[in-house]
């Protein structure tokens, strides 16, 4: 479907037809974007059979996975060391094991949106509290989330809010709140930043938590976006999100993350309207996005380059088998995504910036380890068994291409991979390696 450019139609529900069916490829598209890709063939089949609306609903509304509490408890037991390495492992293992991957994926979006780096915060516990805020409340209201983030301990340290006080406001947090979190450049004045910085004063950070310290708060009158009042941090968050520029700014960032690298203005406008109509409740807006014409349009398919986390977690979820979380965290860092340490407050640029020769080699080398046994990843995986477990298709190279890529690839690509399988001992591992190193596998 090439899709009309009319924004209204783009956000209307996608109605499958013979020409544009809701097939395995469409279901895999949904699972790759809204979650971390299909974990097993039966999941793909179940989603494909349920139709776009039911499929979006089942993914977005999946209840929090209680089984992960065991993982949380394990982390608590070792977190006395306040170790960032353990924290990275904790989050990646959650992503690998969860039955509600939509939540983790959205939290990953917010980790890049409200980007905060441990190298400055220096508290794994504060970073964990922030990640939990995203996992628990990411799908809730964006206003509430913004209110929480400007008084979040990690954020207050990262953007110097904890050092800002009455009479000596620090503008860093106020500036990024407007420039990167809610409005974008050109949608505020320098004076708004100065005044908002005064309203954001009064917060102190003690270890992993923040608390309000009244004497540090500038309770005087401020003027922000032309409105006057004795505003505090909650008011600033509300004022920012209420600005007309906010819905478009957030809608565009969500579309870039979930749909396509360069969404056209009509799509952004239409989704911004959905977002505003749904009161900025992200789970509701995203559920509508995940069943829309724009989301399933031909130009939205296979156009996003997987982030290292999407690639690694997606691969491991579809392969199964034990993996060391700590080694996995190091591997994704080497691919260019060191969790809890985004390169700047702007988060990761993403898209083509993920890929250059060294990060590509990090991906191919990770895949090689992930398809083996032992090694730094402490893998328990048997490529021969994985390939042998499904013999419905006569040719396991074809089967692997279908399972991992859901669509045909050019014969020129298929042939060398088939030959690898025939090569004998170690052939299954080499064959699977060649499949997941195909450029197509790195597209969402």
């Amino acid at each position, binding site marked *: 479907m090439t899709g009309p450019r009319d924004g209204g139609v783009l956000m209307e529900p996608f109605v499958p037809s013979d020409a544009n069916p809701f097939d395995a490829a469409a279901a895999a598209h949904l699972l790759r974007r809204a979650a971390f890709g299909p974990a097993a063939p039966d999941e793909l089949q179940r989603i494909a059979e349920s139709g776009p609306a039911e499929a979006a609903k089942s993914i977005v509304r999946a209840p929090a996975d209680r089984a992960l509490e065991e993982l949380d408890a394990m982390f608590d037991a070792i977190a006395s060391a306040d170790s960032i390495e353990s924290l990275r492992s904790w989050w990646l293992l959650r992503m690998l094991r969860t039955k509600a991957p939509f939540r983790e994926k959205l939290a990953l979006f917010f980790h890049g949106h409200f980007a905060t780096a441990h190298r400055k915060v220096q508290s794994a516990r504060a970073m964990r509290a922030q990640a939990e805020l995203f996992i628990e409340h990411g799908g809730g209201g964006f206003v509430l989330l913004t209110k929480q983030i400007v008084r979040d301990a990690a954020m207050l340290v990262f953007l*110097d809010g904890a*050092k*800002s*006080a009455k*009479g*000596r*406001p*620090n503008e*860093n947090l106020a*500036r990024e709140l407007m*420039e*990167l979190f809610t409005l974008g*450049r050109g949608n505020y004045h320098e004076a708004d930043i100065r005044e908002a910085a005064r309203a954001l004063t009064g917060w102190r950070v003690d270890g992993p938590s923040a608390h309000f310290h009244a004497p540090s708060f500038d309770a005087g009158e401020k003027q922000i976006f032309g409105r006057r009042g004795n505003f505090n941090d909650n008011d600033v968050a509300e004022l920012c999100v209420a600005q007309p520029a906010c819905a478009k700014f957030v809608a565009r960032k969500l579309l870039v993350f979930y749909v396509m690298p360069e969404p056209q203005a009509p799509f952004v406008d239409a989704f911004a309207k959905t977002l505003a109509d749904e009161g900025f409740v992200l789970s509701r807006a995203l559920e509508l996005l995940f069943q829309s014409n724009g989301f399933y349009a031909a130009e939205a398919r*296979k*156009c996003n*380059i997987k982030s290292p986390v999407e690639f690694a977690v997606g691969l491991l979820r579809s392969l199964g088998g034990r993996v060391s979380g700590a080694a996995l965290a190091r591997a994704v*860092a*080497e691919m*260019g995504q*060191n969790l809890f340490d985004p*390169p*700047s*407050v*702007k988060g*990761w640029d993403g898209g*083509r*910036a*993920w*890929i*250059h*020769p*060294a*990060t*590509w*080699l*990090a991906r*191919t*080398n990770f895949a*090689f*380890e992930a398809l083996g046994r032992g090694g730094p990843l402490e893998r328990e995986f048997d490529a021969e068994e994985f390939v042998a477990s499904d013999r419905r298709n006569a040719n396991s190279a074809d089967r692997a291409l279908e399972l991992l890529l859901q669509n045909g690839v*050019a014969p*020129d*690509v298929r042939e*060398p*991979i088939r*030959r*690898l399988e025939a*090569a004998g001992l*170690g*052939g299954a*591992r*080499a*064959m699977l*390696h*060649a499949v997941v*190193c195909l*450029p*197509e596998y*790195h*597209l969402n």
Partner: protein
Amino acid sequence: MNFDRRDFVKFGLGLPFASASARANGFFARPPREPAGERVLIILQMTGGNDGLNTCIPIEDDLYHRARPRLRIPKESAIRLDEHAGLHPAMHRLAEIYKNGEFAIIQNVGYPQPDRSHFRSMEIWHCGSTDPARADSGWIGKLNDSVDGGGRGAAALHVGSTELPLSLVGGRSVTPSLTKLDRALLAAGAAGAALAQTASVHRESKQSAWLARQASAAYEFSAKLKSAAAAGRTNVNYPNSPLAKKLYTISQLMNAGFDARIYYLEIDGFDTHAGEAQLHTLLLRELDESVAAFWKDIRSMHRERGVAMLMFSEFGRRLRENASGGTDHGAAAPVFLLGGGIRAGMHGDPPDLAHLDDGDVTMKIDFRRVYASAMRDWLDVDPSPVLDGAFPSLPLFS
């Protein structure tokens, strides 16, 4: 694998690392002066907005001392360079190099209508343009595009674990990036040949074709590094800092005959909104120790006349210190240049603190003149496809 045999022939011979067509197009038309074909430009990005006023300090200016009651570096602590300026005390090794005639300071560098956003300002520096419409690729990327067939090898190398800086992003050319040599070698077992073969297949989809090109470049890069990693060790002791490790990697590569013309690396943390006195000292010390060790290494290789290092930041910082013991985003700042083939010393006047641009140092030298000088007078390439306008050289290179 689809290697260009010519690349192998050139590799190790100290000839430029680019395709024959690139040379025909003029990138390397004039043989570099000294030593032939081995002139290297290193760009060190000081990320976050380095406080230029506390790096190259206007020690005789009362306006400086009055604006920074807490953060000022007193005249007697700074290392005096001339009648106006002193270097931060943490930079005593670079001060020595300055006195030896191998370090230059270019004052008040910036661009018109300064933008105080890190991202926009860095984007301007990265793209070599103040025009947002030209922000899709970087100045080194554009340079590679203008001389390279696109996607076949690279004249530049990024050393670091961060994302590829925009300055190195080209429309067609691919710039590799690495931290440690041994991590960039392909581990593929039996699939190695199949990987290269499947990457070389023609693709209709723009995004997969682009990815396939990156993959091919990566496999080629890995093969080249395999040779470089086998050679090259140095006797110079480097400090144990992230910056020193990256500079050491560059030294290893150069020693092994890896023939990139441009190396790009970053040191982060200069966004000193709070607690600047301590933080800035640590950063400048890391810079001083690491660069001085690297320079000693380069001298021991007798490559000092063929290496120049340009150090820049996206902006300077406000003259007036803030209430958190830091400084906020500013405008113009000094750029530093290290090399044996440069005109060392002070370029430009001291910052005019009586005539500020909205509280910040006013730009006197457009940063694109620095880029133009490096391209025209050091790399012997035409800067016009890269920069949108005519930017005359500064007398930076001898």
